[in-house]
């Protein structure tokens, strides 16, 4: 199925309101949906026999610090049955106060189990919370790590449990030891 007809079908499922179809820039077109509709759409996209998106190829987080501070969760879906793909995006505001209160989106790990780890990774790197996830922890970084490194305004802590993380710091320690 072509991207346009997939889009039509999606509009049938969740209505046309608040959907933004972006195909004017180079690269792949994508659909931005409001986060409230994500879960319902995901269930239908997997279950609908005409769509049948059986695999979640990729789930990524993106942080934009342009005009407004916002985060995106991008779902690259693929249907091995029909051999077509589709890209969904959910945009989340990141206000200066209580950002973690706004950085919440429904988890799709119940629909595509592959999402379980991918969502954990996105949380680890961006601090986006996935609601309804079974086993929601950090994935790659240690549980007591501070901050989420792929945020554009991330400041690396100088030390982790007394271990220096920056090169200057390490060189300083080495200089102290030798001098």
């Amino acid at each position, binding site marked *: 199925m072509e991207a346009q007809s997939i889009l039509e079908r999606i509009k049938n499922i969740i209505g046309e309101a608040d959907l933004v179809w972006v195909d004017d*820039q180079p*690269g*792949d077109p994508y659909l931005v949906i409001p986060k409230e509709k994500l879960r319902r759409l995901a269930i239908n996209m997997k279950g609908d026999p005409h769509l049948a998106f059986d695999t979640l190829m*990729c789930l990524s987080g993106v942080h934009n610090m*342009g005009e407004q501070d916002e985060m995106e969760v*991008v779902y690259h879906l693929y249907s*091995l049955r029909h051999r077509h793909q589709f890209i969904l995006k959910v945009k989340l505001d990141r206000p200066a106060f209580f950002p973690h209160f706004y950085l919440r989106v429904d988890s799709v790990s119940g629909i595509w189990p*592959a999402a379980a*780890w991918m969502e954990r990774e996105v949380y680890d790197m961006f601090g986006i919370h996935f609601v309804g996830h079974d086993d929601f922890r950090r994935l790659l970084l240690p549980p007591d790590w501070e901050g989420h490194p792929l945020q554009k305004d991330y400041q690396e802590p100088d030390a982790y449990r007394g271990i220096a993380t920056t090169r200057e710091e390490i060189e300083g320690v080495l200089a102290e030891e030798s001098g």
Partner: protein
Amino acid sequence: MLLTTETMVLNMGPHHPSTHGVLRFILRTDGEVIHLCRPDIGYLHRGLEKIAEQLPYAHFMPYTDRLDYLAAMNCNLGYAITVEQAADIEVPPRAEYIRVLVAELNRIISHLISVGTFAMDIGAVTPFTHTIREREWVNDLFEELCGARLTYNYIRFGGVVFDLPEGFLDRLSHFLDYFEPRLEQYNRFISKNKIFKERLVGVAVISRQQALDYALVGPNLRASGIDWDLRRDEPYSVYGDLEFDVPIGTSEFGVMGDCYTRYWIRIWEMEQSVRILRQCIAKMPEGPYLNKSKRKLKVEPGEIYVRTEAPRGELGFYLISQGGIRPHRLKIRTGSFSAMSIVEELGSGLMVADLVALIASLDVVAPEVDR
């Protein structure tokens, strides 16, 4: 009299002979039987995605070598294709053939390591040294090509960095003549070994549905009976002009999707790679090997998701550009990552020895999981 028994927590890794690289599993076992298996990853996390955001496009190429050190060429290729598509760079035909050639050669040696370490995890030490011997030869060829033996940094946007040295194709076909009979030897040596089959057939079966659910890719997906290979179904580079079969798991040797099928798929893929290589040698065109038109690389704002077939399956690069010389975001989606995420579900109910076989059969490489 009833004995009271209790389960115990067994910490396997991060340094353990069969967790290749640094993986860690926390197992809750009842004697030998695993009740709960929890992989703990991140010991090799180097923040490649963050590094990519800091560097100009071309400077990230050496880092892709480190993404999967057993298949550096394939990672190079995946990244190069992504940026080329985003920045509209033409690749001369000779360069395309050289790229496919090195990628397939690297697929062979990556699978050789996979097969060798698999046998070693099952307890047979010798196959590993034999596969390493063959790999050594290819390493020599690569060294001749680009001076490096493991992290090649060979592919550039718009081609490759060096042309093939004189007589390289002859030496390569000499290697292939030597290598093809070796595969039959491996089959006699490992694949048809009674104990080896006994250990693997029917162990840790991944059903079709599970494979789809967990987004398995590459040989692991094909072993579960799903006919999907990016090289054939969404041909990139010159794969469209080459003839090869895609090995699909069957129930012929045991259960579809078990450890043995996953092993067997890799042996078959090596055969097919040899076939592709022979075609590349025959069809190798003359001409330039690098398109030098775009020296200062800038990518228009936009985003693109490109996937290529690496030895461990689909290697996807999700590139978002906001203009300029650096990517805004580069997400790397690797085969080992999803393969690792299925271990948690498959692990429970297996024995400790089976878990080792499962990890080996999924061909997980730690740096690719952690990135």
